[in-house]
């Protein structure tokens, strides 16, 4: 150990008796640190960030249900008026009878209570207009929206992250400026402008891509799971895949283009931030190529803000999906929701809103969990 020192230095006053406390408050790992016993295990499970994060999902769902219920019932107009609007000479007694048949004559609190009770039993009500159960309507519509959202996220993510990395790597050059300019235009242009241009150019003038629906009207499709890709495999129907992709292309691209710009900017910033970190210098010192550094050292570290933003954007994407589905007549939960709002089809409205909220919180929970997986500093113990 150290004995001789430069004579007269202040340091001599404090000799190395015991190991002094570290300037950094970070937990010091010692091999005999592992706690034991089932009690501590249970404690760790409950406080485990994954469990905590997942537990938020049903809570959010509950709150959303209440809010949507209240908003739906407070909208002016009601389904009974709409249902009977076209019936000549309907009497007030018949209107009252219909109201009571649909369960709309009970007080708001009673209706809410019975709805919640129904939810607990897995019943989401029926559509006033078709009599179909909301859960079956959602089971038909949800896979389409999921396909659209996943395709849009994949496209936007791919486009955004690649351009963002290129912009970061070419920082300051014309390439960087071009990409950043393009990204800003991308998320500034109103979505419907992009949609209309896409429809005109690709649908009408060039005639390359279909602009309506999920599958061509000339194809019969009997859903097993509701997901075309899965069903194509299960049913041995490879002929479904091509048309399905064609129909998915325009809606997914329109959504992706408007969201990718934001991801580009976030990726670029996150990348530059990560690049400026000292450990990148260490990696450079090791003699790694710039690409190896980008992938192994920068990207994983930059991925935390990118993932977080993508998760948040997913909500915007879902909202965009609602409008997308309306414009492209793409049959998903979004168009269900829009129709239900116009028609005051309360149960369908509530069910669709609930499902969309669950999707959003679920995705964000996933994002949070993947951030936990990516960044070991956030893990406890």
């Amino acid at each position, binding site marked *: 150990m150290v004995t001789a020192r430069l004579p007269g230095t202040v340091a001599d006053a404090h000799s190395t008796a015991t190991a002094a406390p570290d300037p950094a408050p970070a937990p010091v790992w010692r091999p005999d640190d592992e706690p034991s016993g089932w009690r501590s295990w249970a404690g760790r499970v409950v406080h485990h960030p994954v469990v905590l994060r997942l537990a938020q999902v049903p809570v959010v769902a509950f709150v959303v249900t209440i809010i949507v219920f209240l908003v739906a019932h407070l909208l002016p107009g009601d389904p009974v*008026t709409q*249902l009977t609007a076209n*019936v000549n*000479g309907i009497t007030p007694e018949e209107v009252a009878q219909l109201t009571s048949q649909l369960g709309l004559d009970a007080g708001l609190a009673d209706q809410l209570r019975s709805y919640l009770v129904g939810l607990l039993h897995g019943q989401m009500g029926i559509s006033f*207009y078709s009599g179909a159960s909301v859960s079956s309507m959602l089971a038909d519509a949800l896979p389409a929206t999921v396909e659209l959202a996943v395709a849009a996220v994949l496209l936007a993510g791919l486009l955004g992250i690649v351009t963002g990395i290129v912009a970061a790597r070419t920082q300051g050059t014309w390439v960087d400026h071009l990409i950043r300019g393009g990204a800003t235009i991308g998320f500034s242009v109103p979505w419907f402008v992009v949609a209309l241009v896409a429809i005109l150019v690709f649908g009408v003038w060039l005639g390359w891509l279909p602009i309506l629906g999920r599958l061509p*009207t000339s194809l019969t499709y009997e859903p097993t799971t509701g997901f075309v890709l899965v069903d194509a495999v299960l049913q041995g129907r490879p002929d479904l895949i091509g048309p399905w992709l064609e129909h998915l292309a325009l809606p997914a691209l329109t959504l992706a283009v408007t969201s990718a710009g934001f991801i580009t900017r976030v990726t670029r910033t996150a990348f530059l931030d990560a690049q400026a970190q000292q450990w990148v210098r260490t990696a450079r010192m090791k003699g790694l190529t710039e690409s190896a550094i980008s992938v192994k050292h920068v990207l994983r570290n930059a991925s935390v803000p990118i993932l977080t933003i993508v998760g948040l954007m997913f909500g915007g994407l879902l909202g965009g999906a609602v409008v997308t589905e309306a414009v*492209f007549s793409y049959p998903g939960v979004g168009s269900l929701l829009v*129709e239900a709002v116009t028609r005051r089809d309360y149960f369908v409205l509530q069910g669709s809103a609930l499902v969309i909220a669950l999707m959003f919180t679920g995705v964000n929970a996933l994002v949070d969990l993947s951030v936990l997986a990516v960044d070991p500093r956030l893990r406890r113990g």
Partner: protein
Amino acid sequence: MSTQIQRDESGNIQVPGTMTRRGFMVNAGILGLGAMALGPFLTACSREAATGTGATAAALRKGGTLTFAIDGTNGSLDPAAYTTLGDWLAVDTICSGLTTADFATNEIQPSLASGWTFSADGLQLTLQLREDVKFHDGTLLTSADVVRTFNRQLVDGDASLPTGASRPLRGATARNIKAVEAVDPHTVRLTLGVPDLVLPGRLSHISARILQAAQIDAVGAQLGTTLIGTGPYKLASLAAQQSITLEAFPDYFGGAPALDRLVFQQVADASTLTAGLMSAQVNASSFVSHSSAVSLKANKAVTVYDVPRRVNVFVMMNVTRPVLADLRVRKAINLAIDRSQICANAFAGFADEPKGYALGAVSVGYDPSLADLSSYDVSAAKALIAEAGATGAKVSLIAQNNNWYPRAAQILEENLKAIGLVPTIELLDAGSFSGRFFDVGAHDLALWERNGYVPDPDEQVGNLLSSTGSYGSKGSGVATLKDKADVLAQIDGYLRSACQTSDDAARRDLYTKAQRLYAEQIMALAMVCQTQNIVVSNGASRLGEASLASQRAQLAQAALTA
């Protein structure tokens, strides 16, 4: 438009039976109907001649899939429960009715019924059914099916109805059917409360489509997803919010249809619909917005049809509101509407100014002498307003926020300002709008349209003018006008009598009296124009465009062009 009334030996009114449409067309030519104002419509809608903008008749091919764009589908096709216009077009195609209407000529023709007779007192209508009609599952139609179908909607508490079914058959038949019975396997008798010669026409309504008794009893409320009918196309599959797929029914009693498949595809967005028609991803639609029609007309590949205009556009005035309580104010508003500008700007020219008040040129009962009831006279209007002391009065107008409504509302706003009123315009989504329209506490003026599913003046005008109908009681509140009770009773009397004669001239006379009385004494309805649903096709033909203009589907002959 019928000719002489036929009566049989007993003096019963009789309509010639087993007449095909083709046969009737030939007769119409012989009878010189071409000389009437209906001529151009006949030419436009006949199967032989070219349709639309003067294009030469295209060669047709057998088979293929025709894609028809609709406003929406709820995935439930049931004549007892109105859901969307698109769903009802599908019901109209999958099922047939006892009678059918020719929207070009206003004739009521046999369909499932080969003929019918009224009893001498007019309180019983006996219909003979065709014996060769098959349902889509191969079974034959009998009178039991008709009885079961009607009772399903007419009898309260029928268990085979879906929850919330609005049972439109009752209103469509003026709540006049007291009993339905099967005399024998191919004869049905309807017992009525009061005589109603319009009833055979009413039976062509979509709500009167005949279902299969076996299916009603088997699945009842759920038959909306597996509807079996007797129409030219049978239901293959449906997907709510998406599409309804129909397949040809080769044993259709009117002859095997030309197409393999007919798909009603939901297209919710107006610009997507236009793009779809231009690129032939959609072959036909009756839901095109008026503004898009102009650009579609310019497109070579697309045909925009010239069709009868039966859709009434009107401004409903709520007489229970203080500002509108004075008849002079209401008349002034009627005089202030610049109809020609609205037709040109809001409807892009696809509308006619009302020359016969609520009955357009194509209707039975059209009387151009009523043109003065819809004249445009701003100075006279101003004078009336001043006389009533209503200058500067605030008045609100509600309208929907889609299609032609905003532009029309804008023009009306200017019109109302010009006569000295202070208008506010509220544009609402369809759901909120209909709620407020049928609530006398929630609107002053309301701009709306009314489509008649049966080309009979009673269907088009009866409910509008009657004091007991939903418009009178809940829309305009005229039923509350105590001092006008006599006038209202008189109007109702005319409307009733008009249903008890089949003489077109007599009917016209009655409707003229009713309308003039209404306009001069009540004036809770200012007629704006008669318009149409825009019917467009690309790559398809024989769509029965005249009926599509009133959202009725007569697609038995539809085919794709080669």
